[in-house]
């Protein structure tokens, strides 16, 4: 059974004139227990997509979706409140800047305790308080924080970024989620800390069978930890497939460029001449190209590309391009 199945999710930014389509008909499908990478340059709308799934976008944004299934349940049939209840029960999210995501005026302990699910507690309120404290300690223990006594009494600014991220993960674990959305969990961290966080996530995936949507702007960084990958560019769906498919045989010119620009890949694919990247940079929301948004930067672009391409599927490997690179591999 699919854990989550999203078809044609669009996010519009409301402006004074006409709304801007920041995320343009993106699909996302995940199986239970899967670790899926969501990759794309900064500004591709990855965070927007994640926030739309979990339902925390503010009223500036308008979300449309054709299909939103959660473990076989059609969430579009529910009212927004019911939908939010279902999602917050089973889906947790950790954010890009852990320190900014913790209330600076509350201690870690307070913030952890309030995340603990009421359903796990029993007895009178003073017993519950004790249980909450205990649950908070256990959570910190689970994410590998040894000095939990000191940690619960600290304020966020007294901890390092990596520790804050662990606390955020602990908080996310509090409601025993089935899906964890990790939005660039290791951004701005040293590589040793990065490794620790990724290993922690991987162990949670294996021990608790928790599915993870791992968001990153760096393809190479996540390939080691993911089963499948979805690539986005400028709010559009680019390509989705298993990690091997994406990394070894990318069908889309954009994915190809991402793979080629990573040093590890260019050493693995010897027939590839040089470390190459696409010219130019990702368009800003106010100046989005029509049709395939990669057009202005794409080496394979032709006239047809002013119309948005349809998604083509080759054995679970989906690509959205008029001229996929499929035939270049034999």
């Amino acid at each position, binding site marked *: 059974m699919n854990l989550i199945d999203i078809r044609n999710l669009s996010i519009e930014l409301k402006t004074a004139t006409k709304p801007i389509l920041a995320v343009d008909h993106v699909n996302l499908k995940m199986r239970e227990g899967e670790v899926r990478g969501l990759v794309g340059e900064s500004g591709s709308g990855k965070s927007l997509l994640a926030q739309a799934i979990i339902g925390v976008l503010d009223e500036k944004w308008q979300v449309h979706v054709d299909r939103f299934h959660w473990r076989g349940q059609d969430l579009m049939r529910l009212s927004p409140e019911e939908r939010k209840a279902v999602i917050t*029960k089973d889906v947790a999210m950790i954010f890009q800047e852990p320190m900014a995501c913790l209330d600076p005026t509350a201690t870690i302990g307070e913030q952890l305790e309030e995340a603990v699910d009421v359903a796990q507690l029993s007895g009178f309120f003073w017993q519950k308080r004790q249980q909450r404290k205990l649950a908070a300690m256990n959570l910190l223990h689970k994410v590998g924080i040894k000095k939990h006594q000191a940690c619960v009494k600290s304020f966020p600014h007294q901890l390092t970024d990596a520790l804050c991220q662990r606390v955020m993960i602990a908080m996310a674990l509090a409601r025993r989620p089935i899906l964890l959305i990790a939005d660039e969990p290791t951004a701005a961290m040293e590589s040793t800390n990065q490794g620790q966080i990724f290993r922690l996530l991987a162990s949670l995936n294996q021990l608790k069978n928790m599915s993870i949507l791992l968001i990153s702007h760096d393809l190479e960084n996540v390939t080691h930890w993911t089963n499948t990958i979805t690539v986005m560019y400028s709010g559009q769906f680019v390509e989705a497939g298993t990690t091997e498919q994406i990394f070894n045989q990318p069908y889309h010119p954009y994915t190809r460029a991402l793979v080629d620009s990573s040093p590890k890949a260019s050493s693995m694919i010897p027939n590839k001449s040089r470390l190459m990247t696409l010219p130019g940079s990702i368009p800003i929301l106010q100046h989005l190209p029509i049709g395939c948004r990669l057009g202005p930067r794409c080496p394979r672009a032709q006239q047809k590309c002013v119309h948005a391409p349809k998604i083509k599927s080759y054995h679970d490997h989906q690509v959205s391009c008029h001229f996929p690179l499929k035939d270049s591999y034999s």
Partner: protein
Amino acid sequence: MLIFTLRRISLFFFTMLLLTILSFSLSFLFPGEQLINLTGQINATPEHLAALAHQYQQQASIVSQYFSYLSHLFQGDMGYSMASQLPITTEIFHRLPATIELTSVALLIAMFFGIPIGFFAAIYHRKVPDNLILAIAMIGYSIPVFWLGMLAILIFSIQLGWLPSAGQISLLFEIEYVTGLQLIDILLSDSEYKWQAFQDATRHLILPVIVVALAPATIFMRLARTAMLEVLDTHYITAAQAKGLTFAQIIYRHAMRNAVIKVIRDVGLQFANLVTIAMITEMIFSWPGIGSWLIESIYQRDYTAIQGGLIVLSTFIFIVHIIIDFVYAALNPLAREPNHGT
């Protein structure tokens, strides 16, 4: 926290230095004899004046003159009022408490009403309550104090007769001077009419406090609204939402505390503004405070009183400012807790 305290102390020191220099130079800038401006001894005999000149080191350099002025200040000698020929220190001691009472009650009232209303507006951002509150705040802020005070007296004292229009307490009550703060003195006294006196003093306080508090309250409204909007836009509020907290929980547990801290930081600046309004209000309501006394001194060209009053009033504002800074630090862990990387 130690560094924070040291910083405030040095700030206090330098501010006092500048203030005393300013006040000292005023005695030169005011018309008339500098020594007389400084001491207020308008009826002194030539011998007496000569003695004073010696005391204030008139024959020595300007720096030693300044230091002898300072040493007089520290001994609590600010000269005599040119108008009443009473020591300035005595006058101020009798009048400052009334001002402290009026301004501090007004500040608390302004915060008590302004901040929650501002939060309310922010929660209903861009909806009817928000626009309504903004409009009211605009009007409240633009009403001249003088006009507002007169209007309040006209309606509530003269036409409706609900509240007294002048003074601090009815002359029927005799309250022993202990702290000078009327309400506290009443509570300390053992008069059998204690509660009547307390009621009467409170009734006298209501109109002036409202007049003083109105404009600052509208400023707090806007500060609180902005602060709350900023807080609601932060990542930690989004993260709290993702944690599954309800909107009410988010407001009570996270947003309010952070927004209040942001507002408190600006309260100190607003206090100077509030004292200015209080000075005018004291005139209108014949409130026996230092503000009305200072304005009268300006009318009467009582230069000695102006110098003393300025120093004391600015020191008072500055001390309140520092107290508010400490409250801010106490509330804000970022300013209070050391940054150790556990």
